[in-house]
């Protein structure tokens, strides 16, 4: 009773948004300031909005988000590291009538799983990929990822990533946009309310093109990993704005519903 009273809104308070029912109400294992939770919520909101929660199959990947099935109450299968697009291909080919999506980190998708994502995209598999780019291998302790920025220090490039030694950070949304079967490819960011709103639209679009049978839907979300960036959450948001967005420009790189899209 007392807790209910404490939870009730005060006169000068306003409910900003309702928590989607498909999001499980439980303690999170994500670090404070981690953006995986926001990305989960956006997916949950979109699935509810589209009315497809009970027709959705989630393919979880390997990374901090391997536990996505603890937070999203949908049928789920766990894929080996990087292989989620192949697993999703199998699920979708078996059940063309279902909504199938993968949720993958940058190590998972842009390094070990590069072949699988590019070929699933090129075949135009009717699946959606939510790609969380936090420029590090979060789960294994902050090693260099294919998306690590030049000069960024990680546990395996302690002097900072160097172009001549480790190559350039890979821009996935642009690469995916260039492949045959892609209906939608966009990059958004989770650093601010404004950008989160835009990200939600992009996530929705990436699911819409699947539902409409138009092709492969891809959305890259620039995300913070305060723990491995050795920063607090506010500084992490600032880093996304000041360092990540200039190298990873936000925008829609392909949208077949709008001609070939902008870029």
């Amino acid at each position, binding site marked *: 009773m007392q807790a209910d009273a404490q939870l009730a809104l005060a006169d000068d308070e306003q409910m900003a948004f309702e928590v989607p029912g498909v999001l499980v109400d439980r303690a999170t294992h994500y670090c404070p300031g981690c953006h995986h939770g926001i990305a989960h919520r956006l997916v949950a909101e979109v699935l509810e909005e589209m009315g497809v929660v009970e027709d959705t*199959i989630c393919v979880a990947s390997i990374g901090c988000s391997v536990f996505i099935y603890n937070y999203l109450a949908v049928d789920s299968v766990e894929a080996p590291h990087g292989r989620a697009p192949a697993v999703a291909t*199998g699920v979708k080919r078996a059940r063309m009538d279902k909504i199938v999506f993968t949720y993958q980190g940058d190590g998972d998708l842009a390094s070990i799983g590069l072949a699988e994502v590019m070929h699933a995209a090129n075949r135009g598999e009717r699946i959606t990929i939510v790609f969380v780019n936090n420029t590090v291998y979060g789960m294994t302790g902050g090693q260099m990822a294919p998306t690590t920025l030049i000069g960024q220090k990680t546990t395996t490039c302690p002097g900072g990533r160097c172009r001549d030694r480790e190559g350039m950070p890979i821009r996935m949304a642009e690469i995916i946009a260039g492949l045959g079967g892609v209906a939608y490819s966009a990059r958004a960011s989770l650093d601010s309310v404004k950008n989160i709103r835009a990200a939600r639209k992009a996530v929705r679009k990436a699911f819409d093109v699947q539902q409409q049978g138009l092709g492969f839907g891809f959305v890259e979300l620039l995300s913070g990993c305060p723990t491995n960036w050795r920063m607090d959450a506010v500084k992490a948001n600032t880093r996304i704005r000041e360092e990540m967005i200039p190298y990873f420009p936000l925008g829609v790189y392909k949208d077949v519903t709008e001609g070939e899209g902008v870029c």
Partner: protein
Amino acid sequence: MPHNTPDTGTPERIFIKGNEAIAHGALAAGCRCYFGYPITPQNDIPEMMSFALPDAGGEFVQAESEVASANMLLGAAAAGIRALTSSSSPGISLMQEAISYMAGSELPGVIVNMNRGGPGLGDIGPSQGDYFQSVKGGGHGDYKLLVLAPATCQECYDMMVEAFDLAFKYRNPVMVLGDAIVGQMKEPVTPWKPAAAEGPGSAEAADWRLEGARGRKPRLLKSLFLEDGALAGQNRHLQAKYASMQAEARAECFLTDDAELIVVAYGSIGRIAKSAIRKLRAQWRSRESAS
């Protein structure tokens, strides 16, 4: 009817390769998805599936690698349908990670290995060098497959039907282990239609397959067990299942009743061993009658 057009309803005998018999048997068993990557000596399987499976209402995908084909198999299995991949030794090595995940997540699927020579790129001739990889697990972790080894083209057909039944009975990956001889030789095969050729929506996977959580709790198929004691429990459960799979072990006994020496062999080598035993017995008999 051209000999390579699968018509699993005909009782007539057809003269086909072992690889083709594999494809015919899979279709008869209700296989709905095939995923694979080209490699000798098993290319007749994907080639036949590429036209026969869409005709049968299924899906054929030429994957970007064997890594991908095995993971596509995992995905289709999670949806509870009968799915197949095939390859030969180097490709089977690449599939081991996914096969281990399938075993750990208890997902049924059929993997055909037309064994060629190794190690490395080896050659494209027949070999039984993948025997231990096949029967002891093959990938990481403590798991087992059911392995069926056809010696004739008819067995290629029959064992595909059996492989799908066993995969779903035990919710476990099943391997059909042939070799370059079994896959490439031609023999008469009598196709037959199994009674319960299952398809999507069938009963055999109804209580675990993923199809969207409509009116029920969400389902989860995974091999990660981090909670205290959870993995030990899962492994005990799997080991008990592997022990129960032992009931499926079978062998053909050939002139063993009075034998002093028994030759144990499988597949094409089993047939060669039979011929050798026949010859040796004849030699011994003629020597005994001479002395």
